[in-house]
């Protein structure tokens, strides 16, 4: 460091003079050709739903061969769809929360409480069914808001917040409903709107419920929102790096609250669909929906660390679980094999996620 150097002004530093002879392409991207493995890694990095889709197709193929032709029937395929409708809808809510690097253990409880509110408001207070259903949505949204406010403003970890609200909401559900089931005949007689999503229609051999249609529409709409609107990009940005998102002008706290409220509303929708699926309003149903939704999300290749993954992966994940449970049942094995294999899939999915995240430069 000398005065001469300082006075030199806009000249390169002494130690940099040798650079004139070096390669000037500093920001060159395609530096070297990639191995097939790296190519695969980059492909998966930009298409996070590809792995679950491949696993789904392979598992359908595998069970088709093992079970025989009837597995490929439209009836079996649509039966799987019917069975994953609830998990698919709740999984959509879970996807939003996990994309923000959170987790929502209370989704199943919100779903059940909302369905109980829809049922009890109709039968206990004699409200018209549409009003009771709106009340159910309001309760779902409120539960979501509580989660969101605690996470965003109190800065509590989402796992702890929703572990608490899960218990609170579930207990509130049992206390309020007095553990009382509303029977199917009563709903048919007085408020068939509650069961609308259980209605089926046929297309050839395929049997669809309205619940399945709702799931597909919901996922399609959320896919659009997440990928083609500013709000959706902000969900990813918040989960990816909240500090960077904030400095880039994203209102991180507001986004978090909105995501949890939306998650609560989607859970209420799942509660409505649940009434259709069960035919009755049962406060004891959906005990494992939170774990099942997290399973679908994880197998769907959505990163638990936030900011990565596609909602389409979640639906593929839910379908993989559906294919495994129905396929293994048709083969006639012990149902525990389902859990064992799903457990394996979860660990493999997370391992693949970690590997994909290592992609760089």
């Amino acid at each position, binding site marked *: *460091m*000398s*005065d001469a*150097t*300082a*006075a*030199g*002004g*806009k*000249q*390169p*530093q002494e*130690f*940099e003079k040798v*650079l004139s002879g*070096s390669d000037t*392409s*500093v*920001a*060159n*991207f*395609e530096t070297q050709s990639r191995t097939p493995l790296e190519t695969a890694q*980059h492909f998966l*990095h*930009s298409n996070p739903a590809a792995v679950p889709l491949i696993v789904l197709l392979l598992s359908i193929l595998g069970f088709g061969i093992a079970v025989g032709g009837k597995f490929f029937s439209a009836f079996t395929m649509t039966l799987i769809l019917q069975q994953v409708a609830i998990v698919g809808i709740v999984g959509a809510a879970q996807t939003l929360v996990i994309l923000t690097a959170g987790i929502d253990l209370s989704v199943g409880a919100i779903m059940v409480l909302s369905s109980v509110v829809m049922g009890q408001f109709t039968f206990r207070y004699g409200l018209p069914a549409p009003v009771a259903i709106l009340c159910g949505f309001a309760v779902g949204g409120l539960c979501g808001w509580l989660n969101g406010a605690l996470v965003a403003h109190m800065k509590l970890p989402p796992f702890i917040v929703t572990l608490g609200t899960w218990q609170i909401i579930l207990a509130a559900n049992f206390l309020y409903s007095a553990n009382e089931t509303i029977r199917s005949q009563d709903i048919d007689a007085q408020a068939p709107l509650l069961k609308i999503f259980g209605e089926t229609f046929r297309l050839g051999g395929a049997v669809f419920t309205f619940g399945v249609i709702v799931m597909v529409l919901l996922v399609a709409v959320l896919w*659009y929102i997440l990928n*083609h*609107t*500013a*709000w959706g*990009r*902000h969900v*990813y*940005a918040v989960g*990816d*790096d909240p*500090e*960077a*998102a*904030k*400095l*880039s*002008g*994203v209102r991180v706290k507001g986004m978090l609250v909105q995501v949890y409220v939306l998650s609560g509303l989607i859970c209420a929708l799942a509660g409505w669909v649940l009434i259709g699926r069960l035919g009755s309003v049962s406060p004891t149903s959906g005990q494992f929906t939170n774990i099942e939704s997290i399973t679908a999300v994880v197998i769907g290749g959505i990163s638990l660390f936030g*900011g*990565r993954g596609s909602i389409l992966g979640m639906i593929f994940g839910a379908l993989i679980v559906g294919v495994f449970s129905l396929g293994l049942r048709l083969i006639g094995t012990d149902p525990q094999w389902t859990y064992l294999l799903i457990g394996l899939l979860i660990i493999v999915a997370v391992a693949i996620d970690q590997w994909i995240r290592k*992609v*760089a*430069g």
Partner: protein
Amino acid sequence: MSQEPILTARGLVKRYGRVTALDNADFDLYPGEILAVIGDNGAGKSSLIKAISGAVHPDEGEIRLNGEVIHFRSPMEARDAGIETVYQNLALSPALSIADNMFLGREIRKPGFLGQWFRMLDRPAMEKRAREKLTELGLMTIQNIGQAVETLSGGQRQGVAVARAAAFGSKVVIMDEPTAALGVKESRRVLELILDVKRRGLPIVLISHNMPHVFEVADRIHIHRLGRRLTVIDPKQYSMSDAVAFMTGAKPAPEQMVAA
């Protein structure tokens, strides 16, 4: 020269509990210059820059942009006023694409029905503008504007962050340690980038610990010490060792300040 400063701060005070990070700090930035801000760790450089860029609200004092008093409540408001900041951590979302990052928080929506009712993003328009900006700054060796930022090298990421600031900054660009995490070659590229931005007429505030880089590009050097502006020196009249001596208090600061 009797040019009016574009950005000034007078008597800024910021306390964090018992720690006074800014103690009556002043600041002046003139049009078209590169002003380096140097200071020891804990001198309050970051607090000063955060106050100017809207990330921190000073407890006392006033900031003027083009002579008008401003009160930024968030970095968003500073950005809207034309002050762009390149943060040390770059404030980029690793999983999002280059184009998405450049437009994060100020996305362009499709015109008409799709944009208004379906809030659809105008990806082609955003990608076009992002590509234009990167090309202007000679960074278009980055081929795919849709690739995730985390697949870029450190220098490329810095380039994206600088391009974002240059694309949207209409009045001032603030750069916090732009070369700290880079290798020799990438640092050189970023310094050229800084001079490029200056040539477009944007004044730049450069915070750096790297004396050779500071002395190479800066027109004036603001030395921060103990929460306030100690002095402003002309890099052509003082050596790096002088600057370090003023900064650390080893030498008393010169009386006269350098205006633009």
